[in-house]
């Protein structure tokens, strides 16, 4: 009888772990949808306001995304117009018309201010990270799941992320970007005031991401997402060989 009890407790705890893992995966997948992680082709404009060491600057990009590919074109400022960032899965390229060949770059490098190259395109955290559910937390009366994301491979934009996902919307509202040692070096705050119609259903789409330096909080980048819409992109635009021609 005693044995059976132990067995039952063990069984229950295992199944509850499994359930937690399933929940974490499901939450992460759902939250990716609000940040461009869809099966359908998408297009939106991102405007980045950067404040760093007292200087402010602004940049604008047009993003065309489809599944794991993204084509990012700089619109502003004028001197950067025509520059292209191309994402093929985790591989990332930089190109501008004066270059004879594209340059392979890392998603980890800084794009501008606090924003990394990888922050600009659609998010596929469910693909790139292994989530574990740490705890739940109330933020402004709303229940949030706190996930701990660990990179599956090297050279992702971040090694580790602590990710707050709202129980109500199943969208991420807050992120702590951690170093390999587990120290937060940047904070991210997300808002979802865009609406995107997918398959007749309206889904919320990210409208603002504020990334703040953990040490110097006056150093920050605000990415504003506008004009999101579904768009069937030809596969050719995501081919690096076509870009350079």
């Amino acid at each position, binding site marked *: 009888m005693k044995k059976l009890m132990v067995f039952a407790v063990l069984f229950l705890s295992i199944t509850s772990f499994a359930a937690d893992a399933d929940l974490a995966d499901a939450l992460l997948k759902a939250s990716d949808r609000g940040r461009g992680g869809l099966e359908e082709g998408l297009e939106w404009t991102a405007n980045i306001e950067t404040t760093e060491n007292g200087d402010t*600057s602004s940049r604008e990009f047009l993003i065309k995304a489809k599944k794991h590919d993204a084509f990012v074109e700089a619109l502003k400022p004028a001197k950067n117009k025509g520059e292209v960032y191309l994402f093929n899965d985790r591989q990332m390229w930089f190109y501008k018309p*004066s*270059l004879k*060949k594209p340059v392979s*770059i890392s998603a980890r490098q*800084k794009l501008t201010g606090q924003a990394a190259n990888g922050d600009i395109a659609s998010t596929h955290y469910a693909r790139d990270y292994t989530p574990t559910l740490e705890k739940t937390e109330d933020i402004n009366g709303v229940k949030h799941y706190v996930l701990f994301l660990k990179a599956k491979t090297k050279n992702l934009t971040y090694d580790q992320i602590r990710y707050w996902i709202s129980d109500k919307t199943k969208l991420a509202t807050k992120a702590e970007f951690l170093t390999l040692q587990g120290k937060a070096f940047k904070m991210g705050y997300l808002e979802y005031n865009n609406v995107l119609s997918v398959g007749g259903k309206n889904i919320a789409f990210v409208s603002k991401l504020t990334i703040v330096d953990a040490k110097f909080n006056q150093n920050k980048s605000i990415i504003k997402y506008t004009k999101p819409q579904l768009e069937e992109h030809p596969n050719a635009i995501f081919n690096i060989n076509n870009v350079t021609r």
Partner: protein
Amino acid sequence: MILKLAYLNLFRNKRRALSTGLAICIGFVGLNLLGAYIYRVKKALDTTSVYSALHGHVKIFKQDSLVQFALKPKKFIFQKNEIDQIEQIFSEFPEIEYTGKNINRAGLLSNGKISHPILFYSFEPTIYARSLTQPDITNWAKDWVLPSQFKNVEIFKNNNDVMSVTPKIADIMSLKYPLNENESLQLAGRSLDGDLNAVNLELGAEHTTGLQFLEDTLVLVPLAKVQELLGTDGAESISVYLKPNTPLAEFKKSLDQKLDGLAFKVDSYNYYDEKINAVYLGTIGFLVVMGAFFVFLIGTAVSLTIVNSLTMGIIERTREIGTLYAVGFKKREVIKLFIYENIILCGLAILVGVVLSFLFASLVNSLDIRFTPPSVTGKIQFRLVWNFTIALTVAAFTLTLTLISSFIVMKNKSKIKLIDLLNDSGA
């Protein structure tokens, strides 16, 4: 007369005199060659620091730029008008032969497939050409510079888009030789505004850093290209190349005084300053420690030989010393006699040593022995540069050593009572 007696005494025990003389001679030759080696390495370091590394004799930065430039390049770069003001000051110094502008940054070197993180140092083709054709380079550091680097001078003159890579980087980027037949590479980096930017660079030139840990990291890029990448017409630093035999300290002092008058603050550094040239100090420090160790060993050996032979000489001539006292010689005159003897021996040994070390150095140099020193890439010729000042210094050192050794022995031995000297039945 004392001198003559000392000289004659030298030949009384020929074998001992010969072996002592030989010890002094070998000691002298050893120290002289050690000095010659260190002198040569130092000269080569000086030359490569100034000319190959494009530091110039004095390098000028904006104040605190060494620490801050990488983080805040926009703030710490010299703007065009600031460079103009500095160059205005340069024109007041006739001892300046020429000057060059530099920007050193980190970036990515890409061949369209892979990107490799690198540091890029800028160069101005005309300044590079001028620096590599300096007579000092030919005299001191010919083997520290790749033969292909001398070809670069022509390449850079003809094409302003050509960069220079190390053999190691050529390997990493899968480049074929000859280099100029490769397609262009792309250099990506952050502009002064903080944006990612990239420029095309042609291949064709090669260099070596001379240091293993930099060999896969350092490329040379024309300044104009770097400026294009960074979106600036300014420079991080300005190198000042002086005419031969300009006293550096005095020049720097008066230059600093003039630079103080500028509206913006600058820092200036000598080419051997640890802050801009840590390798220099490290290498020299190592050589000095090694040198001191050998000087100690050789000095002790020579000194002991002298002490031994002198002690033997005194024992053999005890009664003679007594006789000299008896006819009225004073203690210091007897001491003088023995010290003279050793100084003459030392002098003869040095004369032979000068010839020997000169011959040995010539032999070693003509054999063209090449070796790879620790943390250095490529082979360097084991070259000994015979130098009069070094020979003179070493000779002075050997003589002093002889003098001190002799003096110590004589001071001890002359304590023996006079009467015992005369009664001694020895010899």
